[in-house]
């Protein structure tokens, strides 16, 4: 299964497929395109990726977290391409018999995905466009 998509993310469907009958808790994280960043207005974002490496890197992170939290069923999907304000860029679904593990796994997953997965975003606004993280170096 791919961790990347060029289509809108069907979160309800993913939640349904992630949660097993033994699960009493499901924690969903949605990353959403917001209308500002570093004091600038954002109208849309273009997400680019080194696709095969991003797939491998997300798989590695999911496998690491699953090893730590074996009770947690995990689904991760990151959307690429042009997204507008309010669109969901990433969904992380964690389901488990008890809630503590799903909260912890969810938080670790998004933190690690943001740190190492080769995905980039170019923000577009009234003042032009810019690759996030590059100009600030």
């Amino acid at each position, binding site marked *: 299964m791919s961790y990347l998509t060029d289509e809108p993310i069907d979160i309800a469907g993913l939640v349904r497929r992630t949660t097993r009958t033994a699960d009493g808790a499901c924690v969903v994280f949605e*990353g959403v395109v917001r209308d500002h960043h570093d004091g600038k207005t954002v109208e849309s974002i273009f*997400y*680019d*990726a*080194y696709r*095969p*490496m*991003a797939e*491998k890197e997300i798989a590695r992170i999911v496998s690491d977290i699953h090893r730590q939290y074996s009770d947690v069923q995990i689904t991760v999907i*990151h959307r690429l391409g042009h997204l507008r304000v309010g669109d969901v*860029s*990433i969904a992380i679904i964690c389901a488990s018999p008890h809630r503590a593990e799903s909260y912890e796994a969810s938080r670790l997953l*998004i933190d690690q*995905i*943001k*740190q*190492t*997965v*080769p*995905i*980039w*975003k*170019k923000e577009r606004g009234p003042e032009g466009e810019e*690759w*996030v*993280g*590059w100009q600030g*170096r």
Partner: protein
Amino acid sequence: MNVRLLYFAVLRDITGQSESTVSLREGARAGDVWHSLREQYAQLADYRQPPMIAVNETYAAPDTVLRDGDELAFIPPVAGG
């Protein structure tokens, strides 16, 4: 020997290409390729240190010795999520 160099995000914009084949002497390291890119593109001059480096889709250190047929990519600061 030849290495396939991939360009992403800001590096694709700066170089105007998504990939190229670079000919290197035996024993060349990943960091050496970054330094020749810097000489070629004025916009990279400020970036003495390379961004993160991937060799064959895995993160690697700048002193990694390259082999013929390797796929090399410089990874600008990531911003997924």
